């Protein structure tokens, strides 16, 4: 093996693998084991109910939608924070992290108070026929809120390393602003954007605290997967709860793997 500047490769790699196994893989294995206790037919019966399907659709549908919204808005905000100077910029920058720091239940209660039919925003939206609290839209709003910092924070450092030269070069070669963005800037931002998207998506799928307050949790309508799991647990149906968990896990893994492959393709130019 080639000599390295820092010693301890074997030790640190071993530690990293052991830690990853203990923190990530072991609980997941336990989850799968628990679910397997039901047997195949029991498992199948537990996860193929209409209620689970409805929750599945809502959880992943809303999470993907919220990740797209966060990708768009996050790109804009990261751009503003990196490219422009304005009074209060530091404060604005610090505010971005707030959804990270806030206990999710607090966020859920705040959002509910805001969007409830008699809330500050709700009372103006209600006459327009727009119901947010206690509907699927409410689920989406909560997911957008908790996933928002990821895209901003993954894009910021990449945007900072983008030279103005690139835009100027494109302009002097005759590109319009739209062409410069689509052909030059966007492809360079895409890998980081995908990372942010994946993180926001993962967070939204797993989000529980803030969503259940605003969702209203009507079966078949505004019930998310994590809530379904909690309900199973409350009825001491550990096997069923684990089974639903395994399904979520499988879908999440497939999506993240897909994003990972897409990301690798998007930065093929960086490989030697």
């Amino acid at each position, binding site marked *: 093996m080639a000599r390295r500047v820092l010693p301890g490769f074997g030790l640190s790699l071993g530690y990293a693998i052991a830690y990853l196994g203990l923190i990530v893989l072991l609980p997941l294995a336990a989850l799968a084991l628990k679910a397997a206790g039901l047997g195949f037919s029991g498992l199948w019966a537990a996860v193929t109910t209409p209620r689970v399907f409805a929750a599945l659709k809502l959880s992943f549908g809303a999470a993907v939608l919220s990740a797209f919204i966060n990708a768009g808005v996050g790109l804009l905000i990261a751009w503003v924070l990196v490219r422009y100077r304005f009074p209060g910029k530091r404060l604005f920058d610090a505010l971005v992290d707030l959804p990270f720091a806030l206990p999710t239940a607090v966020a859920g209660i705040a959002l509910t108070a805001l969007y409830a039919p008699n809330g500050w925003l709700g009372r103006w939206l209600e006459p327009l026929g727009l119901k947010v609290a206690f509907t699927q839209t409410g689920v989406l709003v909560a997911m957008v809120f908790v996933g928002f910092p990821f895209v901003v924070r993954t894009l910021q450092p990449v945007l900072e390393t983008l030279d103005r030269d690139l835009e100027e070069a494109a*302009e*002097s070669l005759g590109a319009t602003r739209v062409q410069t963005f689509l052909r030059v800037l966007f492809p360079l931002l895409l890998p980081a954007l995908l990372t942010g998207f994946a993180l926001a998506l993962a967070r939204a799928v797993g989000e529980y605290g803030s969503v259940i307050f605003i969702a209203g949790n009507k079966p078949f309508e505004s019930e998310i997967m994590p809530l379904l799991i909690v309900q199973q647990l409350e009825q001491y149906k550990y096997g069923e709860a684990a089974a639903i968990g395994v399904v979520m896990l499988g879908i999440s893994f497939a999506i993240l793997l897909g994003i990972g492959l897409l990301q690798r393709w998007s930065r093929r130019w960086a490989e*030697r």
Partner: protein
Amino acid sequence: MTLELSHLHRRFADFRALDDVSLSIAPGEFVALLGPSGSGKTTLLRILAGLDFPDAGDVRRDGRDLLSVSARERGVGLVFQHYALFRHMTVFENIAFGLRVRPRAKRPSRAEIAERVEKLLKRVQLDGLGNRYPAQLSGGQRQRVALARALAIEPDLLLLDEPFGALDAQVRVTLRRWLRHLHEELGLTTVFVTHDQEEALELADRVVVMNQGRIEQVGTPDEVYQQPGTPFVFEFIGRVNKIPVKFAGGRVQAGDQRFDADPLDGIGDGSGVAYVRPEHLAFTTTSLDSGWKATLGHVFFAGSVAHVEIEVPALGLTLDAELGGDEAQRRGLAAGMSVTVQPRHLTVFAHDPKTGQLDPSRRRVVHPRYGQAALARMR
């Protein structure tokens, strides 16, 4: 294509980047903008590219206003110091970029684009590397891709911003000779910015020396080196000795020496500075009447030339002299030898009595008249 720049002014907050700059550039000319950082040379280039705009003044291309044309429509080829290549595109795609973004009506066909890119790749000696990404190229190769990309849009003006600044010395020399040949082939009007005097002198047809937002001197490389017009140009280009002098009775007094020369009309009495290039200082170990008595300090042999330190007590200065390395060997020069020093010619500037600054308009070249016998003994 003729470029006419007149009375350009540009300020950034308190900083004067351009201060009344006028310049005209002839078709096919290769012009260097030379100056230290902050001299305004890059600002001037950016104004020509349409990436910056003057607060006042006028730029005309073949008589037509250039400033009202956007950078996008100027059709100016621009090469950046750090290449600014699109790193997510292959070399081929980089070069094709300017053609592919054209509006449909003006866009060449796929096959035509491919053909033109291949031709350009050959021109910049990168044939076969079209499928590489910029990360897979060396610095010199990247710079040539940047050049090919700029040439692809068939510009009538090529602008280069410190084109060799990021390259190592050897590549730099090879690439700049190559660029000079390319310019001779294409005949494209070219303006490049550099802070490297050697680069400017070697490459350009005409050198524009800039300082603090103003043009100090415009001339051929030979002119700016041999006949610098201002103290700044003297000190910025090449190495030079700076000797304080007095003017009295139409003569120049430096230390204990009074140089008999043609009358210094219009300078009057006062003080000033004389500039002498190291290679214009002659010295001999024979003791002579005219010339400063001095002692040799360190002798540096640097290959083909030798640099000699000469300590002149009468001036309280150590002067730099330069001569051929072979000659220095032959004469057996060594530290501690006593010599007599005679400048072959000096360029003097008088101080402006009001400001105390050197006044470029009061500049004279002095050719001292030494006795013939003395001269003969000098090399």
